[in-house]
């Protein structure tokens, strides 16, 4: 034999693991980063839709109607939301994101007749003006929370957890705590801000029910009240949210993104969106509340195919965060030298926590923020949302559905045993659902 033997890398200690061990040895603290879970997880990619043929007949694309509207909040609220599309923009904070990015998201959502959502840090006037339908989050930190904004919101979302970090609070590192962000949060500028992981004045479902009652009283029972939970024990959390009086439930799977969280949290806590959705739907069905309390699923939704499959599994709507940022320009191969300065490259950047976002989205630096043209960015997100809707309609018509909500589990098959078990649909070519 000639030359050296082939290099033999360890499966247990691949180069990235070696690097992380040595980084931890040098720095003595966990890695904090943005984005969501990067590991391969069972997902909607592991499902396929079963198009119509002889036993079911399809609808004509572009000719026969396939409706997309959804009503959120009709359980108790006097003014439920009527969304034109079942895709919403997830809660992301001003602070984690620039004001320009928040405005662009709001304009795109407005153009599409759907909601956008505030985040940890409160509501900005720019976001309110840009968003015809704005969901106002009530988070454990209570940063910027005030009754005026509660009243000028279109819906309220009590945030219990986030898919990227079930059981964890928010983080915003000092480089993003500008004077304006600090002022909104009543914090000293420049500190590493750690949001609370528990609400300050309630614990458990009995308290939550009373907290929701209080929010309804403050807003005269006008606003739909959502409860957002991270996917960890969705069967319990969904049922307890219903019991607590939620008008709608937002369930965020572990692929959900974050502006800054410990990497170990992002990759190792919570369950994927796919099994979380099935558990949540079953939980609602057990209570006879499926389709009565809308379920909004989030965490790794990227395409109209994901939307169609999520709705077929029983979701009433989906919510997107990371994908919306990517539509804005996140990870676009421009300003490549600035990615390199962060030690990353377009396509792999997760450096939201640094505040040095090369494309001006996850930053509070005016020079970087100026890189995002708000009109063009809003148009891109609008185009992306339109594409997702068209894709979902295409798939639904192929399954013979005149409304996206007519998609059902019977329209799905799984490509892997794991996905079959997690989604509760048969393995393709069989009638077999593992565990049943």
């Amino acid at each position, binding site marked *: 034999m000639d030359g050296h033997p082939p290099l033999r890398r360890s499966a247990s200690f691949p180069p990235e693991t070696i690097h992380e061990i040595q980084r931890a040895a040098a720095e003595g603290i966990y890695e904090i980063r943005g984005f969501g879970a990067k590991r391969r997880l069972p997902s909607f990619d592991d499902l396929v839709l079963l198009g119509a043929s002889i036993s079911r007949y399809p609808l004509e694309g572009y000719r026969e109607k396939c409706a997309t509207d959804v009503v959120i909040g009709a359980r108790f609220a006097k003014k439920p939301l009527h969304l034109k599309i079942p895709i919403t923009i997830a809660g992301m904070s001003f602070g984690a994101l620039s004001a320009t990015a928040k405005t662009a998201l709001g304009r795109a959502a407005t153009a599409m007749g759907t909601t956008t959502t505030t985040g940890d840090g409160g509501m900005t006037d720019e976001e309110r003006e840009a968003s015809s339908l704005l969901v106002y989050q009530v988070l454990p930190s209570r940063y910027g929370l005030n009754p005026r904004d509660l009243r000028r919101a279109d819906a309220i979302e009590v945030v219990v957890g986030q898919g990227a970090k079930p059981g964890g609070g928010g983080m915003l*590192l000092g480089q993003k705590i500008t004077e304006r962000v600090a002022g909104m949060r009543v914090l000293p500028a420049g500190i590493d801000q750690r949001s609370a992981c528990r609400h*300050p004045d309630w614990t458990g479902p009995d308290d939550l029910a009373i907290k929701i009652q*209080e929010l309804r009283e403050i807003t005269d029972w006008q606003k739909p009240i959502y409860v957002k939970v991270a996917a960890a024990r969705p069967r319990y959390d969904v049922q307890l949210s219903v019991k607590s009086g939620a008008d709608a439930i937002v369930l965020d799977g572990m692929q959900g993104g974050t502006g800054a969280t410990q990497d170990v949290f992002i990759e190792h806590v919570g369950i994927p969106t796919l099994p979380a959705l099935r558990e949540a739907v079953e939980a609602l069905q057990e209570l006879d509340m499926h389709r009565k309390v809308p379920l909004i699923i989030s965490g790794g939704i990227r395409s109209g195919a994901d939307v169609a499959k999520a709705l077929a599994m029983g979701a009433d709507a989906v919510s997107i965060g990371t994908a919306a940022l990517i539509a804005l320009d996140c990870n676009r191969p421009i300003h490549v030298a600035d990615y390199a300065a962060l030690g990353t490259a377009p396509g792999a950047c997760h450096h939201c926590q640094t505040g040095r976002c090369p494309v001006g989205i996850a930053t509070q630096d005016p020079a970087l923020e100026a890189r995002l043209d708000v009109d063009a960015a809003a148009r891109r997100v609008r185009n992306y949302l339109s594409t997702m809707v068209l894709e979902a309609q295409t798939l639904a018509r192929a399954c013979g559905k005149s409304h996206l909500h007519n998609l059902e589990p019977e329209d799905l098959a799984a490509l892997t045993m794991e996905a079959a078990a997690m989604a509760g649909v048969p393995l393709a070519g069989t009638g077999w659902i593992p565990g049943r």
Partner: protein
Amino acid sequence: MITVDLELATVRELNQRLHDLPPDTNERAWTIVNPGGRHALLAGLTRPVSITVEGHVGYYCAGMNEAAEIVIDGHAGVGVAENIMSGTVRVRGNASQAAGASGHGGLLVIEGDASARCGISMKGVDIVVGGSVGHMSAFMAQAGRLVVCGDAGGDLGDSLYEAVIYVQGRVTSLGADCEEQPMADADRAAVADLLARTGIPGDPARFRRYGSARRLYHFHVDHADAY
């Protein structure tokens, strides 16, 4: 004086009636009788009305109050005056957990004792407690002043930001990053002013001041054992 009997009217009816008051209302003096520990009483008020509740209230009484002057002539449940923005809320009896939680402004007066987490996450409110406060009071408190005329339970001021705590009695223990700090003339004047405004007896000279050591404001490996 307008009297509302909560054995005859619902909380919803009362709150709506108060929310519907115009800015120049003449209906400025109210008495609420038979509160019966009901929740979310007087939540979200915005007008400068004076209201006395004759009896005990449940959770979140006077939540997010703006401008109203409210007296609870009894005990208060969890989260009294939570997220208060302005105005004054006075509890003549004792208050349960999380009194004044995340309050942004205004004044909360508790003549009796307050349970755990009094002033948790406070963001500018002033709180004066005639008696003692339970453990983890002023947890993650960001701004405002907590004056305790009695004793404070364990882990006072844990993870404190820029709020300031004054305690006249004993402190069981301090939480992470909370330290005793010198009591300056300005501090004694502030305590004297708050005591005078609230009519709570106390000797400013006997109070001690607690604030943030600011050691946890930035992540650092050498701080890990502080938690």
